[in-house]
């Protein structure tokens, strides 16, 4: 294959990636799109193996086998509730690959005493920085999601200054590396180590509920790192693919931020929820909640015509999605209608709730977006809130002192009655009181969501 043919083959791969993303516009075509994108990747790999100057095929074969094996095993065994962790790990391995390629390219030239051209040098430094930040940032995001470490923001005095200084150090060392004529290795190692540290520092101050934004952003970084690697090895398919992924992550982060009415800067540096329970203007003192039994809830649901289920992260934790679908079917059998209202930031990553409900065989046309369902909430007989809190807090509309003031919410309180499934009266992630719980229309069904729903199911069946 000549260089020109090689370029054309890579172009085919890039086009397949683009068509693959295009087909994600509808669940009906998405599977085919994913397959096409995979074919593009296969083409790129085969072309590289045919064209590249491959001296040690055994190393490559071993790497392909080990990597594919691990990737396949992860993809087959991961539970749908753990999808955010999975995506975090995938982001991290993308960052690691870019970091390693960038590092190897640098060492290759330095070790043979070859002067690296300035533009390649710049892109190598960028690859190292972005790849390393993606790697360690993703590991921290994984640890927070997996609850290996606390989901609460970790902050210390002067944190932002330390991060800023470390970033400046990376820039300074990179410039020094580029300017110096001698083959120096220590600035290279220093850039790698400091960048890895930066990744940690950037993610530890971000709280668990802000993870959808962080995962999207790290997704974007992994794409940009791949694009930078493309600049280093002068290969346009890497640049195109990397840029596509980079912009996808940015767009998703923007959507998430908009759904929380917060700026990206506020999410990244605001340490939201760090201060613990914040005194909301409306205190819970003197207000009482009405707790109901599964029997009462079953009667309410069985005779409802129009039910809206509002799921949150708690549904994922309790693995309650299958029980929810069973209740949906029971209500439908009795002539009622059930819809699902999905807040953009419900769960720990964009689209988290949709995947869980799809897993439980809920047809995707029953899932409605917030803006779509809110005008209909007045006609809803029963709104069932499962493991969601801040996204249904009416305080976001009215309480200017609330940390979530201005965040668009699902209007659960507009429904004729509301059932909230909750473990206890503990405040939500942000430590904010939720006046929805004290609403006279609201009944609280305390306990594990899955167990409560299972009881409700058997009660409805007996009616």
């Amino acid at each position, binding site marked *: 294959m000549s260089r020109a043919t090689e370029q054309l083959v890579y172009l085919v791969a890039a086009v397949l990636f683009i068509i693959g993303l295009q087909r*994600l516009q509808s*669940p009906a075509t998405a599977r085919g799109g994913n397959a096409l994108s995979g074919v593009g990747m296969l083409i790129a790999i085969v072309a590289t193996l045919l064209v590249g100057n491959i001296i040690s095929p055994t190393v490559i074969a*071993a790497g392909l086998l080990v990597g594919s094996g691990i990737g396949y095993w992860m993809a*087959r065994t991961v539970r749908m509730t753990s999808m955010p962790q999975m995506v975090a790990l995938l982001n991290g391995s993308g960052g690691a690959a870019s970091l390693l390629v960038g590092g190897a390219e640098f060492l290759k030239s330095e070790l043979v005493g070859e002067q690296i051209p300035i533009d390649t040098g710049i892109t190598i430094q960028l690859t190292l920085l972005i790849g390393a930040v993606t790697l360690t940032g993703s590991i921290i995001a994984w640890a927070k999601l997996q609850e290996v470490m606390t989901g609460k923001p970790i902050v210390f005095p002067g944190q932002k200054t330390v991060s800023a200084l470390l970033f400046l150090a990376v820039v300074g060392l990179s410039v020094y590396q580029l300017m110096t004529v001698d083959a120096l290795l220590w600035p290279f190692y220093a850039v790698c180590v400091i960048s890895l540290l930066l990744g940690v520092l950037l993610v530890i101050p971000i709280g668990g509920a802000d993870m959808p934004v962080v995962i999207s952003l790290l997704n974007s970084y992994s794409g940009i790192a791949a694009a930078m690697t*493309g600049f280093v090895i002068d290969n*346009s398919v890497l640049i195109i693919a990397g*840029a596509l992924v980079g912009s996808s992550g940015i767009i*998703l982060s923007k959507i998430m931020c908009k759904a929380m009415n917060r700026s990206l800067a506020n999410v990244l540096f605001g340490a939201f929820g760090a201060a613990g329970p914040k005194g909301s203007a409306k205190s819970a003192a003197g207000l009482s909640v009405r707790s109901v039994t599964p029997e009462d809830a079953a009667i309410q649901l069985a005779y409802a015509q129009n039910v809206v289920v509002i799921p949150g992260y708690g549904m994922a934790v309790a693995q309650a999605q299958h029980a929810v679908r069973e209740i949906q079917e029971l209500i439908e059998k009795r002539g009622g209608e059930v819809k699902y209202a999905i807040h953009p930031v419900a769960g720990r990553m964009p689209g988290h709730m949709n995947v869980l409900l799809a897993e439980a065989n809920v047809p995707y046309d029953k899932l409605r*977006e917030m803006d779509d369902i809110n005008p209909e909430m007045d006609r809803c007989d029963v709104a069932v809130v499962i493991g969601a809190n801040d996204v249904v807090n009416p305080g976001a509309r009215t309480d200017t002192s609330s940390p979530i003031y201005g965040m668009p919410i699902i209007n659960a309180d507009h429904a004729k009655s509301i059932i909230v499934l909750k473990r206890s009266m503990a405040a939500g992630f942000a430590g904010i009181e939720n006046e929805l719980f004290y609403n006279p229309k609201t009944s609280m069904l305390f306990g594990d969501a899955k167990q409560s729903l299972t009881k409700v199911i058997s009660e409805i069946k007996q009616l």
Partner: protein
Amino acid sequence: MSESLIGGLVIFVLATFLGAALIGRVPPTLHTPLMSGANAISGITIVGSLLIAGAGLGWISTVLGFLAVVFAMINVIGGYVVTGRMLLMFKKEEKR
């Protein structure tokens, strides 16, 4: 600055805008498969990893290249397989 860098920048900027236009049209219900699918695409660093791993440039490069191939393939295979697995679950309501 070299011509290849400028050429690369042009491609990068155009592809970024193309990506934004494409992603803006993906419905929120598919955002999770979108992310894992995009992840698989960013595994394109496999191209660079293979070139390094196969170049036979001494043990440091070979070890780094080997690890890069492993990580990139985790990204590629893990991303595509898990995306396929999720998309298989998305079903429309059956007409009865």
